[in-house]
C-alpha cells in the first residue's frame, strides 16, 4: 500500500508569505496525480514538501499510512525526477543509478542486477559507462528516470521533468512516462505548468492556484465542468472564451447575442464561458464574431476576432474546408449544455 495522503498542509515562509494555504489531497495506490498551475501557484513547493526537501509548516503528509512530516527525504522511500535531472556529473550512468542503492547498503552483485534491469527497461544498457555530459537531453532524462525506478520506491515524484526537452521529444517521453508508470504501478505525483501534459498524463488532475486547490478530478471532468473561471481559463487550448452576460426571462444575454440559458441557473449577472470548439458556424446563429485572424492548424482552424460592437475577444475552433476570411463577420451557435456559467464575484461555477 502506498497511497499518499496530504492533510490540510500549509507552508508559510519566514516573513509571512503563505506558499501553500491548506491543501488536502488523497492519492490512491498506483494513481498518477498531476499538480498543474501557473508558476508561483505552489505546486513545486507542495511536491518538495512531500519529498522532504521543504519543511511542513502545518498539517501532515503520509505515504503508505506512515506520517512522514519529520522523516528525512531518504527515509520516505520516494524517488524524484528533477527538472534539470540533477544527474551527478562526475559519475557514470551506472554510478548515477547505483548511488542510491549503494547508500542503502545493497550488496554489490544485487546492485548490478537491479541497475542492469532498470537500464534495459529504459534502453540505457549501452550508455552505462558514459558520463552525463556525453549524453543527449533525452538520454539524460531517461537516466534520471532510471535513477528513480531502480530503487523501486513507494512513489515517484516528478518536478516538470519534460520542460528541458524539445517539443517532439517531450511528446514521446510523455507517452513513455505514462507507459512506464502503468507497467510499474507506482503511485506518482507529477508537477507541470503545461495543461496538455497534465491532461494526457493524469488519473487525477489537481489544479492549483495561489497555494490552494481550485479543482480536483479526472482530466475529462475538469475539462467538461471547470469549477471556476480560473480552471476554465487554464485548462484547454485554445483557452475558453469568457465574457460577461446576464440571465433574465429571455434567456442568456451575451454581448454577442441572446441564447437559451441552461436550466436551473439563477437570474442575474454571470460570467459566460464557451470553449472554442463548441462554437459552430451557422449563418442565422445568435452569436456574431468579426474575424481578425485565422490560424490554420491542419485538422482544424482557429478564428480569432471580436464581438462586433464590443471589446470582447473570442476564438472559434472550426473544422471543414469552408473557413471565413479576414474581416468577415461569422454567425455562430452554441448548444445550451456547452455553456459554462460562473459567478462574476467569486468566479465559482453556478451549475
Amino acid at each position: 500500500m502506498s497511497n499518499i495522503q496530504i492533510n490540510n498542509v500549509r507552508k508559510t515562509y519566514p516573513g509571512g508569505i503563505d506558499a501553500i494555504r491548506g491543501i488536502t489531497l488523497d492519492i490512491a495506490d498506483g494513481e498518477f496525480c498531476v499538480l498543474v498551475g501557473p508558476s508561483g501557484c505552489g505546486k513545486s513547493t507542495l511536491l518538495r514538501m512531500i519529498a522532504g526537501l521543504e519543511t511542513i509548516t502545518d498539517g501532515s503528509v503520509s505515504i503508505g499510512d506512515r506520517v512522514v512530516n519529520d522523516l528525512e527525504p531518504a527515509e520516505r522511500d520516494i524517488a524524484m525526477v528533477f527538472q534539470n535531472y540533477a544527474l551527478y556529473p562526475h559519475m557514470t550512468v551506472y554510478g548515477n543509478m547505483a548511488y542510491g542503492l549503494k547508500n542503502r547498503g545493497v550488496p554489490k552483485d544485487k546492485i548490478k542486477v537491479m541497475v542492469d534491469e532498470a537500464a534495459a527497461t529504459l534502453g540505457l544498457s549501452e550508455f552505462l559507462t558514459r558520463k552525463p555530459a556525453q549524453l543527449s537531453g533525452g538520454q539524460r532524462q531517461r537516466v534520471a528516470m532510471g535513477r528513480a525506478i531502480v530503487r523501486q520506491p513507494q512513489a515517484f515524484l516528478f518536478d516538470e521533468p519534460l520542460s528541458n526537452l524539445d517539443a517532439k521529444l517531450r511528446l514521446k517521453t510523455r507517452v513513455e512516462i505514462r507507459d512506464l508508470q502503468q507497467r510499474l504501478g507506482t503511485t506518482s505525483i507529477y508537477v507541470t505548468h503545461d495543461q496538455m501534459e497534465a491532461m494526457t498524463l493524469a488519473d487525477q488532475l489537481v489544479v492549483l492556484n495561489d497555494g490552494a486547490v481550485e479543482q480536483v478530478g479526472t482530466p475529462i471532468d475538469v475539462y467538461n465542468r471547470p469549477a471556476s473561471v480560473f480552471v476554465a481559463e487554464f485548462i484547454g487550448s485554445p483557452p475558453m472564451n469568457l465574457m460577461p452576460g446576464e440571465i433574465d426571462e429571455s434567456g442568456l444575454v451575451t454581448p454577442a447575442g441572446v441564447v437559451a440559458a441552461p436550466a436551473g441557473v439563477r437570474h442575474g449577472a454571470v460570467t459566460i464561458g464557451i470553449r472554442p470548439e463548441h462554437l459552430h458556424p451557422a449563418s442565422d446563429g445568435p452569436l456574431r464574431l468579426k474575424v481578425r485572424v485565422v490560424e490554420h492548424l491542419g485538422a482544424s482552424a482557429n478564428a480569432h476576432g471580436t464581438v462586433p460592437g464590443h471589446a470582447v475577444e473570442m476564438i472559434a475552433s472550426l473544422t471543414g474546408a469552408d473557413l471565413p476570411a479576414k474581416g468577415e463577420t461569422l454567425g455562430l451557435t452554441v448548444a445550451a449544455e456547452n455553456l459554462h456559467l460562473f459567478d462574476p464575484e467569486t468566479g465559482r461555477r453556478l451549475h
Partner: protein
Amino acid sequence: MRTKTVTFRHKWLPYALIAPQIVITLIFFIWPASQALYQSVLRQDAFGLRTDFVGMANFVRLFADDNYINSFVTTISFSAMVAGFSMGIALIMAIMADRVIRRAMVYRTLLIWPYAVAPAVAGVLWWFLFNPTIGIAAYALDGLGYDWNHYRDGGDAMTLIVVASTWRQVSYNFLFFLAGLQAIPRSLTEAAAIDGAGPVKRFVTIQLPLLSPTVFFLIVVNVVYAFFETFGVVHATTSGGPGQATNILVYKVWRDAFEGLNLGSSAAQSVILMVLVIALTAIQFRYIERKVEY
C-alpha cells in the same frame, strides 16, 4: 584599400596600449630576473671590491649547505600547514556560509575583510597579540598554563607565522570555495539526500568531487602564497628566528643578501625559487587549459 588605411592608422595604438604593462614587466620582472641570473654565477666579496665568475659554484654550495636544506624543509612544512589550514578553515566556513540565506552578504563581506590586510600588517597584528610581554593572546595562553615565547621557542615561532599567514589567506580561499559550492546546483545535493546520503556523505561523494578543480587551483595558489608572499609576515614577527626555525626560503634570500651580503648565493636562491614558481604556474595553466572534466 580602406581596411589597409585603418589598420595603418591604428598600428601604433595596440603597442601604446600594452606599453605600460611591458615597461612594468621589463623593469620589475625581466631586469631583476636577469640580474639574479647574472649574479647567481658571480661571487663578490663583502666590500663589493672584486667580482669573480664562478659558474655553478653558488648552486653547488647551496645544496651542500645544511642551512639551506633545512630552510627548504622548513618552507615545505610551513607551506603545507598554511595551505592545509587556510583551505580547511575556508572550506568549513564556505560550507556554513553556503547554508546561510538571510544576511548572507553581510557575513560574506566580513569574512573577506582580512584579505584586504597587507601581509606585513597581518604580521604586526599577530605579533602584538602574541608578544610574550604585552600580547593578549600570550597572556591568555599563560593563564592556561602555556608559556608562550616565540623568541625562544622555534615551535611557537612557527605557529605564529603559520597563524598569521593562514588568517589572511582564509578569506581568499573562502571566496573561491563559496563560489565553487554555489556553482553546484542545489538539486544535486537534494537528489543525493533522496538517494539516502547523509550530509557528510553528500559532501564527500557529491560536493567535494565537483569542487576538485577549485581545490587544485587553490593548492597551487596557496603554495605560491606561502612560498613567496609571506615574507612580510616573517619579517614583521620572527625575522626568521629563533635560530633558523622560521627562516623560510624567500626570507633567507633577503637575509643572505642584505644581512649576510652574500649576493651570489642569494641570487642563486632567487633563481631556484624562480624555477619553482614557473613550474607551479605551468602546472596550473596546463591543468586549467585541459578544461575541467568530470
